[in-house]
């Protein structure tokens, strides 16, 4: 294997170094109207950082209220609004767009040897739809917010007097952003792979984005129309979900979860993809089970469409339906474990380089395994009847959803930071931040499993006094988590401002994207490259100093 070099095309004007994508153009307009996938990725990064912060503030408010059994810092109504806004912000404005919007946009073209996505203008349009959704959502929040929960269950959501319409509209618009991104990514993967990048050579992050995009295109329209029905009903009293007019609220739940169960894979598959990249980079040997990891993505995506009924076990489903849905849900556990086993096998007897991204990956494995196992437990109908609508469910989905998405978002941010910004961050504080974040997650949600098992219902602002110590423990760790995030943010900002210049491949990682300059040039490659090796073929050179 030769050293990684992208040679200049024969006729390419020598010497005329193309400037990098950040310095190439300047001025506000060059950013807000950019068609460059890398700049659009940075627009997403700025926006999701803000929404994550917003969602985090809501979360801390919730946890602070729960320090005491009775009315603490807010009344019941405020609490209801808080948890709704926390859920809406985190799910629709952070977890769905975060990894595809930022890292998908930045690295998808680079990883397949392309100069950009297939439809750059559509890409920018997706971003602005997302931004419009966020603005609509925030506008709704300023006008009082809503108290329906992020699930918008009818008939409550069609009768509540809070400001639900702009928030429904925000989720609807956000859906279209997500659909268009999905279309763009699928077409890009199909039509813009450079010569040599055949299907079994696609980096696993790309496979993950492919699976995600399929779900985005096929599931999102269903929730879009469902939320539209809900909004029209709220507005005009059409009665489609209103029992008083012959409508059926359970139909809403079916349609909602037909999207929202697959949507959890929209959130988690990109995180799985990042995990594969991080394991591939730091284990210093080729990934074990490339094909299995790639194919299990589609197992998850497919079965994910057939499992929605596990959210309706106690909503009046027939026993047969419940049994089938329970069984199908458990299949997802099998596909997920295929990935986990392959990651673990890749680490076995490897000379692991312990870095911040890898630390996050370890935390992610822990949370995913326990989050996944509790999911399988929840899919067992007899157990779910006990746990439904308790803190056990809250802990389950925070372990797997927040744990996986947030940790892998941070892993990706650290892992690709040198490539994206051309700067190195300080490893020490980053590692401390990672440990705090991971401990914070585990500590915040572990007590909630116990709370739920003992019967603490979700979405209540008060509780019997004997639950207090578990709630206090959870809150303390939530603050530790917040501290870890702050430290991480400060550390990265410092790196942005005064970090050392990053070489092309500071990690000595085998993947293609490390072969081009840090930060990349505007069109990524001087000419369309030919890629003639597999993505995780570790070449053993150690750190490749400035291969270019």
């Amino acid at each position, binding site marked *: 294997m030769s050293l990684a070099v992208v040679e200049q095309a024969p*006729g390419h004007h020598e010497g005329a170094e193309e400037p990098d994508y950040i310095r190439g153009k300047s001025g506000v307009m060059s950013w807000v109207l950019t068609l460059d996938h890398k700049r659009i990725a940075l627009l997403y990064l700025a926006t999701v950082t803000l929404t994550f912060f917003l969602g985090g503030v809501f979360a801390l408010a919730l946890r602070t209220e729960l320090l005491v059994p009775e009315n603490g810092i807010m009344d019941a109504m405020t609490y209801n609004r808080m948890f709704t806004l926390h859920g809406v912000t985190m799910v629709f404005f952070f977890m769905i767009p975060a990894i595809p919007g930022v890292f998908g946009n930045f690295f998808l073209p680079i990883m397949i040897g392309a100069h950009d996505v297939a*439809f750059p203008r559509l890409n920018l349009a997706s971003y602005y739809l997302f931004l419009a959704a966020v603005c609509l959502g925030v506008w709704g929040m300023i006008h009082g917010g809503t108290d329906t929960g992020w699930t918008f269950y009818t008939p409550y959501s069609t009768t509540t007097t809070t400001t639900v319409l702009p928030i429904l509209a925000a989720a609807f618009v956000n859906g279209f952003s997500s659909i268009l991104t999905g279309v763009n990514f699928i077409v890009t993967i199909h039509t813009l792979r450079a010569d040599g990048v055949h299907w079994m050579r696609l980096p696993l992050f790309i496979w993950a984005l492919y699976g995600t995009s399929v779900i985005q295109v096929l*599931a999102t329209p269903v929730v879009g129309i469902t939320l539209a029905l809900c909004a029209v009903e709220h507005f005009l009293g059409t009665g489609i979900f209103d029992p008083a007019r012959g409508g059926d609220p359970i139909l809403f739940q079916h349609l909602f979860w037909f999207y929202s169960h697959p949507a959890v894979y929209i959130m988690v598959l990109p995180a799985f993809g990042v995990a594969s990249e991080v394991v591939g980079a730091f284990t210093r040997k080729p990934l074990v089970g490339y094909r299995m990891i790639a194919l299990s993505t589609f197992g998850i995506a497919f079965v994910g469409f057939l499992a929605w009924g596990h959210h309706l076990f106690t909503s009046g489903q027939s026993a047969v339906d419940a049994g089938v849905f329970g069984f199908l849900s458990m299949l997802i556990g099998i596909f997920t474990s295929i990935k986990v086993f392959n990651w673990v096998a890749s680490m076995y007897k490897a000379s692991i380089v312990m870095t911040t991204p890898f630390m996050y990956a370890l935390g992610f494995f822990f949370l995913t395994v326990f989050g996944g196992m509790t999911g399988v437990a929840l899919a067992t109908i007899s157990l779910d009847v006990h746990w439904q609508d308790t803190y056990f469910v809250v802990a389950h989905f925070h372990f797997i959803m927040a744990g996986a998405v947030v940790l892998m978002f941070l892993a990706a941010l650290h892992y690709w930071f040198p490539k994206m910004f051309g700067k190195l961050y300080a490893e020490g504080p980053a590692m401390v931040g990672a440990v705090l974040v991971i401990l914070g997650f585990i500590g915040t949600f572990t007590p909630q499993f116990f709370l739920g098992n003992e019967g603490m219902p979700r979405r209540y602002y008060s509780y019997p006094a004997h639950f207090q110590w578990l709630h206090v423990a959870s809150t303390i760790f939530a603050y530790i988590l917040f501290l870890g995030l702050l430290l991480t943010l400060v550390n990265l900002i410092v790196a942005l401002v005064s970090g050392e210049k990053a070489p092309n491949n500071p990690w000595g990682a085998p993947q293609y994207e490390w072969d081009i300059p840090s930060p990349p040039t505007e*069109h990524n490659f001087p000419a369309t490259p030919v890629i003639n090796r597999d993505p995780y073929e570790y070449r053993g050179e150690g750190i490749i100093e400035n291969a270019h």
Partner: protein
Amino acid sequence: MHTETIDHGNAEKPPHLRFQFSDSARQFHAAKFGMWLFLGQEVMFFSALLCAYAYYRNQFPVAWSMASHHLNTTFGLLETINLLFSSFTVALAIHFVRLGKRTITSVLLFVTLACGILFLVMHSYEYYTEYHEGLLPGRFFHPEAGWHMPMESAMFMSCYFFTTVLHSIHVLIGVGVLGVIMVFNMKGKYSPAYYTHVEIGGLYWHLVDLIWIFLFPLYYLVA
């Protein structure tokens, strides 16, 4: 990743070819493929509504057929023929743009979008009569007393209005899109070597028609 690179600097680059694509054929394929995916999205969009339709029709078969009787089947049929005809004209437009016959293409596009507008006008007239007969959805449902319609017929009208209005919005968007394409065509933007917009605009229009082909029997002919 190394050595040989493809140099596409030597071949003449056609003006419509964007930098991220190596050749026109791929770019055309990408646009078409993107449109197909988008149409898949549209199908899912409407299929949720068909679920609601199927569920409530099964629940209230009598109320459903009684309400259906009050829709204007003649108009529905004319609208169907109209849209089928427009699907034919847009297909012909694609055929002629490929042959480089600019004027015929423009005329055919014009006929197509005129059909779209005719559809919207006819459907608006239907809505207007339904409004006068009190056949509006949900809480606006006040049919004439002599009709003895059960309350559940309101659900039929809810589904009918929601679905057909959504479809009409699609027709409206289609008319706009075809209008822009027609203007581009008159300005000479398309040639046998490049007619992507006409092709994918046509695809979209076919889907809009196809959805109507489902809606017409489901709503007008259930009785």
